[in-house]
């Protein structure tokens, strides 16, 4: 069953027709040609599809597009408007925080969302009773929803730490 919805994707308003079954991920990739978010598992188990929806990092593979009519969506591509890389993206390159690159857009968006959550004082499982700080244990825990099979974790953590300073 088709529905017409509007999304603002990486700053650009888009109208599109989606099947009610279409996930936000498939709407972006297959309907709009926005392929920065990746499909790794399609079940919320890898994080490769992470995008910001209205400023929060979420999994686009478990989001029905029809339920996000009017949403503001930011992908890793949109974090670099006019080719100017986001500090997280620059740090990923400097630290070689990826190999094959397939999980990378999700890692980058997740890191951006995570740093914002940390700024807001949100705790994680690595936080004690006080306010969270930008340390390696916090970063590793908060980035654990993004699998990297090339296993660049030991480079992702310092990249996020540097970008978050």
């Amino acid at each position, binding site marked *: 069953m088709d529905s017409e919805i509007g999304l603002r994707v990486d700053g650009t308003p888009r109208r599109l027709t989606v099947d009610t079954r279409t996930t936000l991920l498939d709407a972006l990739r297959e309907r709009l040609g926005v392929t920065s978010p990746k499909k790794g598992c399609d079940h919320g188990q890898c994080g490769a599809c992470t995008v910001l929806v209205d400023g929060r990092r979420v*999994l686009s593979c478990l989001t029905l597009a029809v339920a996000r009519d009017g949403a503001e969506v930011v992908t890793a591509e949109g974090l670099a408007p006019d080719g100017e890389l986001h500090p997280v993206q620059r740090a990923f390159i400097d630290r070689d925080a990826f190999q094959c690159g397939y999980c990378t857009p999700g890692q980058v968006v997740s890191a951006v969302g995570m740093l914002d959550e940390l700024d*807001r004082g949100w705790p994680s499982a690595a936080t004690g009773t006080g306010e969270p700080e930008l340390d390696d244990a916090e970063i590793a825990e908060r980035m654990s929803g993004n699998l990297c099979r090339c296993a660049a974790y030991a480079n992702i953590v310092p990249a996020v730490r540097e970008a978050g300073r």
Partner: protein
Amino acid sequence: MRPFTYQAPADAASAVRAVTRDPTAVFLGGGTNLVDHLKLGILDPGLVVDVTGLASVEITDLGGGALRVGAGVPNSDLAADPLVRERFPVLSQALLAGASGQLRNMATTGGNPLQRTRCVYFQDVTTPCNKREPGSGCSAIGGWTRNHAILGASAHCIATHPSDLAVALAALDAEVRVLGQDGERVIPFTDLHRLPGDHPEHDTVLGHGDLITAIDLPARPIARRSAYRKVRDRASYAFALVSVAAAVEVDGGVVRDARIAFGGVAHKPWRAYRAEEALRGATAADDSYRAAADAELADAVAQDGLDGGNAFKIPLLRRTLVATLRDLAREDA
């Protein structure tokens, strides 16, 4: 997955009406469990009723130490709420032990406890499952049982409930506000989920069309000293092998009171009343904690299965409970 109709009603009563009158209808909250199951073919709704726009996202101080949490409050926000962290640390810790940052941003207070029990055979429509197709048989029995129940299982289903939040809510005597076609009612959280028995297709006592609108946390001073301990196969982003939500009050080396619930070991979050009872008045020491664990686990039954089954979960849960209580009592000293 067949095509479905999508509706986003303006208010809860309309949503309840819409689902109640269509036996193929489902509510859509954060979607993290529903969309997963749509793709797996476990669910095939004709109507999806989106309640994310109408659910309350407020956390209200009810006074005297009690809180009301709107069903639409995302797990992230609930975990970060200063009042929750202060009054109910076990709740914040349980939420943060679950899933990932992205999923916690999506999952809601009302939806998270209603995720289905988790079992690899339930999730695989090519294998028989009494929960999916009553009477078809349980594939998990004699199969891979590492994540399966040791308490309260039946011959028809040995699945476990995966919610961490629910374990904390069970320990905290939370109450569930439910809107149904006959109006609003309140259910003790410990009565929300059910054991599989002869009808594993029902995870909860809710009827079709019942909508959780809020969860109330009554004042529980004991919960200020509480903790959630989750043991899993990797350091993060994994379901519990066993988990313990516990709150204790220790005075003069004696346990005055305790609230305990287990996760990962039963079809529902398992409130450990027998362990609580055994602890009241006992010396705050490992021997007492072990005795409490033994009291609760007296009826535990291990499942045989691949890779040695899940017998290890009985000593694991015992050890985890003892360690959690020891740490809490230490803090309390």
